[in-house]
Structures are given as C-alpha cells and as structure tokens.
C-alpha cells in the first residue's frame, strides 16, 4: 500500500502553516506574501499576507528590485538571518527555496539559542524580583516594629497626659458651677473656654489611646448575640438628646427582621455613635438624619445618611485615614479629633465587616458598614495588626471625622 501523495503534501503543509513552531512564508513571483505559518504571523504581530516581503525586512528594501535579491539568496546555501523587528525572538535563520517562476518559500527554524537566552534572562529577572521581595518583607517588618513603637509611645504619652488634663477639666467645671458669683463675665467666658478645651483634649487622648491599642492588635472583642432592632432604637434615643441641641431629627427608617447578630455591642455602638454624631454635626438645622439596618444575603448593612454638604470626590479616599485633613469645613461650634472614622473602621474590620462612604441620593452623605451574619470571629490574639491598620483600601477607603 502507498500513501496518497497529494494528501500527504496537503497534510504536511497544513501542519507547517498551522501547528508547527516553524517560520514559513509563501511568496509569489513578485515577492508578495501569500501565506504565513502561525509562528511567523505571531512574530510579525501585523498580518503580512498581501504585502510585499521587502516591506517587512529592512535588508531587502535596500535593493532596487527585491526580486533580484531573492533570486541571489535562493542560491546561498547557508541561508540568512532576518530580523523580526521588536518582537521576540528578534531574529530568525531562514533558507529561501526557489519555486522557479512561481515564487519562493521562506523556511526558518525555531531559534533555540535565542529562546535559551530568553529563559536565562527570565530566570535572572525572577531572581532579582525574589531579592526585591525579600527586601520588601524586611522593610515591612521594620516599619511594623516602628509603628508598634510609635503606638507604645503614644499610649504612654496619652496615658500620662490624661490625669493632669482631667484635673483641669473637673476643676474648671467645679469653678464654673460653684463660683459663678465671684466671676465677672470675661472671667466666666475664659474659664468656660478652659473647660471646653480640656474636654476636647480628653476626647483626643481617649481616641489616641483607642487607636494605638487597636493597632497593636489589642482590639479585644466581647462577642455576644445582639437583637438589632432594640439595640438600634436605644442608640437612636441616646443620640436624639444631642441632636435636639442642633435641632436635627433622628429617624430609624428601616430595620429588617434579623436573627441575633453576633458582635461586640459596646464597640458597634461606638461606631454608630460616631457616624450619627458626625451626621448630626454636618446637618443643617431642621433637617433629618436617617438610620437603617438592612439584611443582605449573609450580612447586615447599617446606614447613616445626612443632608449635609457631602464629601467631595477627592477626599473620599482619605475619609477613614487617621489625621487626614479634608476640605469639608466643620460647622461652627463643632470639634473633631480626626480619629473617629479611623477607629470605626478598625472596629468594623475587626468584626470582618467593611465600612464605606456613598454620596446620598439628593445630596448629603451616607456612611455604611456591613457585618457578617454568621461571623467567623478570629480568636482575640490572632487579630492581624496589619489588617487592623486598615490599609487594604477598596471601597472601605476608611478614615475619620469629616
């Protein structure tokens, strides 16, 4: 039995053009590319079919009539190296097979050597990248140690400052309450300023202590089941007292039916208090702050929305970063330690939730956070301090009071 010659030829040609890692170009007698192997097509990037071969290869275009050059070349037994422009491999060794007045076949081999070089370069790039990675780990560990040191220092300083400042606060309060008659108007106002300032400093110190403690991995969560509706109603009631002073109404707009939520109620209350007091602070008089708790697939989303000025786009990514200065003006008489949102974010992250900002439809801000309904709460001592530093951005581009 013999093989059908034309079938063998056809199959071979198909293989060479479509599957083999070979460089094949079929040229007509004008030197125009008729067909190219898959490998040749990949090398050129642009489809060479229908274009004169001379356009693609600088070596050829220098000749007046590229066909003469092709003819000469077909006689050179050693073939030639042609460059393939900017792609890799950059050169290919080809032989020109003359088909007489029909045209030419350009046949090249896989440039193994260049590929070996390529692999060598990749291996050494990999080695360099691995070294950089090592350096990064080392730097990161150093930074972490410095941060711990900073937190220890802040913790100590805040702790030592707290006693004298709380003495200033309580003594000025005492004088204001008990010596009114002995003070003239100016003295009274000055003393009142001393009291307000020392009160602010106490809040700042408390926030600093909390933040330092959390960053050092000491966010100790006391997880217990919490009935969300009662919990929210209580928080709204407490905050309403403050809101009344600014003539702002708090409204619990929605609270889905929820199974008991496993969380640390004191800490989550701290988060909600912070969001609500911010919302009240930025609300125009007579406006309303909306509070909601909605059930998602496997989480609860808490939302606090105000009708204040909102946060400009450029500041949103800084919102949850400690001490970041953003351009929204604090209303008159309002103070902010700049740490509240940062603390809130860390508490939410500690519960494996997320916190984020959304502009409110119709103006104002919405601050939202989600808590998992069936949380896998990490054991206390395994909370990753890096995680709690909240650097993993995303939509929880966390931060602080506006």
């Amino acid at each position, binding site marked *: 039995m013999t093989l059908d010659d034309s079938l063998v030829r056809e199959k071979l040609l198909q293989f060479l053009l479509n599957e083999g890692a070979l460089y094949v170009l079929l040229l007509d007698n004008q030197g125009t590319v008729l067909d190219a192997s898959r490998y040749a097509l990949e090398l050129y990037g642009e489809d060479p079919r229908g274009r004169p071969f001379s356009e693609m290869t600088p070596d050829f275009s220098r000749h007046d009539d590229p066909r003469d050059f092709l003819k000469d070349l077909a006689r050179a037994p050693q073939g030639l190296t042609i460059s393939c422009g900017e792609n890799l491999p950059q050169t290919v060794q080809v032989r020109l097979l003359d088909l007489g007045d029909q045209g030419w076949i350009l046949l090249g081999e896989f440039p193994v050597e260049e590929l*070996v070089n390529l692999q060598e370069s*990749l*291996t050494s790039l990999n*080695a*360099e990248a*691995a*070294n950089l990675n*090592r350096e990064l*780990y*080392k730097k990161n560990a150093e930074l972490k140690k410095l941060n711990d040191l900073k937190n220890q220092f802040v913790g100590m300083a805040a702790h030592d400052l707290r006693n004298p400042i709380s003495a200033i606060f309580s003594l000025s309060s005492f004088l204001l309450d008990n010596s009114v008659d002995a003070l003239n108007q100016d003295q009274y106002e000055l003393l009142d300023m001393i009291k307000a300032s020392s009160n602010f400093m106490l809040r700042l110190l408390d926030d600093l202590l909390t933040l330092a403690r959390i960053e050092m991995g000491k966010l100790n969560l006391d997880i217990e089941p919490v009935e969300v509706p009662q919990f929210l109603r209580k928080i709204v009631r407490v905050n309403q007292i403050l809101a009344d002073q600014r003539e702002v109404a708090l409204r619990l707009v929605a609270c889905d039916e929820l199974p008991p939520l496993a969380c640390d109620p004191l800490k989550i209350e701290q988060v909600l208090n912070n969001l609500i007091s911010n919302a009240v602070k930025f609300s125009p008089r007579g406006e309303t702050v909306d509070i909601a708790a909605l059930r998602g697939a496997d989480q609860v989303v808490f939302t606090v929305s105000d009708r204040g000025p909102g946060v400009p786009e450029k500041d949103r990514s800084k919102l949850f970063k400690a001490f970041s200065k953003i351009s929204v003006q604090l209303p008159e008489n309002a103070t902010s330690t700049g740490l509240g949102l940062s603390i809130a974010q860390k508490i939410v992250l500690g519960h494996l939730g997320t916190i984020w900002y959304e502009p409110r439809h119709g103006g104002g801000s919405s601050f939202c956070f989600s808590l998992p309904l069936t949380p896998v709460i990490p054991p206390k001592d395994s909370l990753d301090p890096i995680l709690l530093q909240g650097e993993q951005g995303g939509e929880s581009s966390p931060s602080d009071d506006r």
Partner: protein
Amino acid sequence: MTVREEDYQSYFEALRAGRKGECYGWVQTWLAGDMAVRELYLAVFQRSLYEIGYLWETNRISVAVEHIATAITENLLSLVYPRIFGADHCGCKAVISCLAREYHQLGGKMVADIFELHGWDGYFLGANTPLSQLCSIVEEKDPDLLALSVSVAAHLKELDGVLAHLRERYPSLPVLLGGRAFQVGEGSSVFNQPGVLYVDSLTTLEDMLEGGSLSELCQSGGGRI
C-alpha cells in the same frame, strides 16, 4: 521536625516537573509543622538543587528544567519570610554578597536569612555585585561583618584581590567566606589571613551565631580571626 524521605521524594518529583503549586504546598505543610528554617533550607532546598545540578551535569535533564527548579526555589524562600523577619533584633548588621560575575545567589541569600533569624540585620546584595557597588553598600549600611558567597571555583582567583582591597579600605571589618567553590581544589586554605574566616556550612554559621562567637569576633574588629 525532620523531613520524611517519602515527602522529600514527592517534593523533588514536583520540583523536577516544574509543578510549583505542589512545591508550595509541601513547604507550607513543613512550615506549619514548625520545621526549623535550617532544616528546610538544607534538607529540602539545598539537597534538591544539588540533585537537580547532578541530573543536569549528567545530561538527564535540560538546562530549562534546572532553571525552572531554581526559579521555583527562589520563590519558595519567601514563604519562610514571615517567620524570619519577625525576630527581635540585636542591633548587629551583616552584609552578604556575591562577587561580580557570580550568578549563584541562593546560598548567599540563605546565609542572609540565617542572620535575620538570629536577630541580626542580614542585607543581601544579590548575584553579580561589582566591588564598587559592594563598597558603597558597606559604607551605607556600616555592617559589623561582611560575608561573601562563592560558588564557581574559577572565581576564586579574583578573591585575593577583592580581599586585599576590602582589608585595606575597611581594616576592622571581619569578612566571612563560604560556598561551594571552596569545597573543590585548594579550598579555603589559601585564604587563611587576618580578618578573614572561612565558614564551612550554614550549620557552623548557626552554631557561631547561637554561641555568640560571631558578636565577639565583630567586637574585636576581626582581630581574633
């Protein structure tokens, strides 16, 4: 914890076949089992690369397979980093480097890691570091000790000049030598000179670090060598 022979063989098969995920899995298992870093480095990484080297030398695997096995190992080292870089630091610093044209860098990197593990700062400069660059980093980091890793025996003939230069420029900086190159031919004996010490293995280095003899050596400005 030591590596069980059959586990090592599975790891080696995966490494040889370039199945990096499987190699990662093994290393993670060993680390989770609290295997000592030195054990992992010697009984897994070094042993397997020596075997890969032997297979390549004897033409049973291609250079491509060797390259991939090396690249995988380079990346596996990073799995150990969380453990290494967490150590409390004692304030001592070591700079570890390869010489110019030396492309074998894994041994030197492991040496740097062992320094870190024992509370030293181990700065690794990488493969193919020209003397001028080495000097500028020595000046920047002001280390207590410099360690050089040499793998290719042919590079030893340049070492004399390098050492002379270093001794002249930094007379009180002790220099440790180590690596494959010293295990063939004349070995390390020709480099017996003041301030220069050949250390034959990672294990010896670790003993020196644990016994405190390296810190003493640095305090004496290499004078005790």
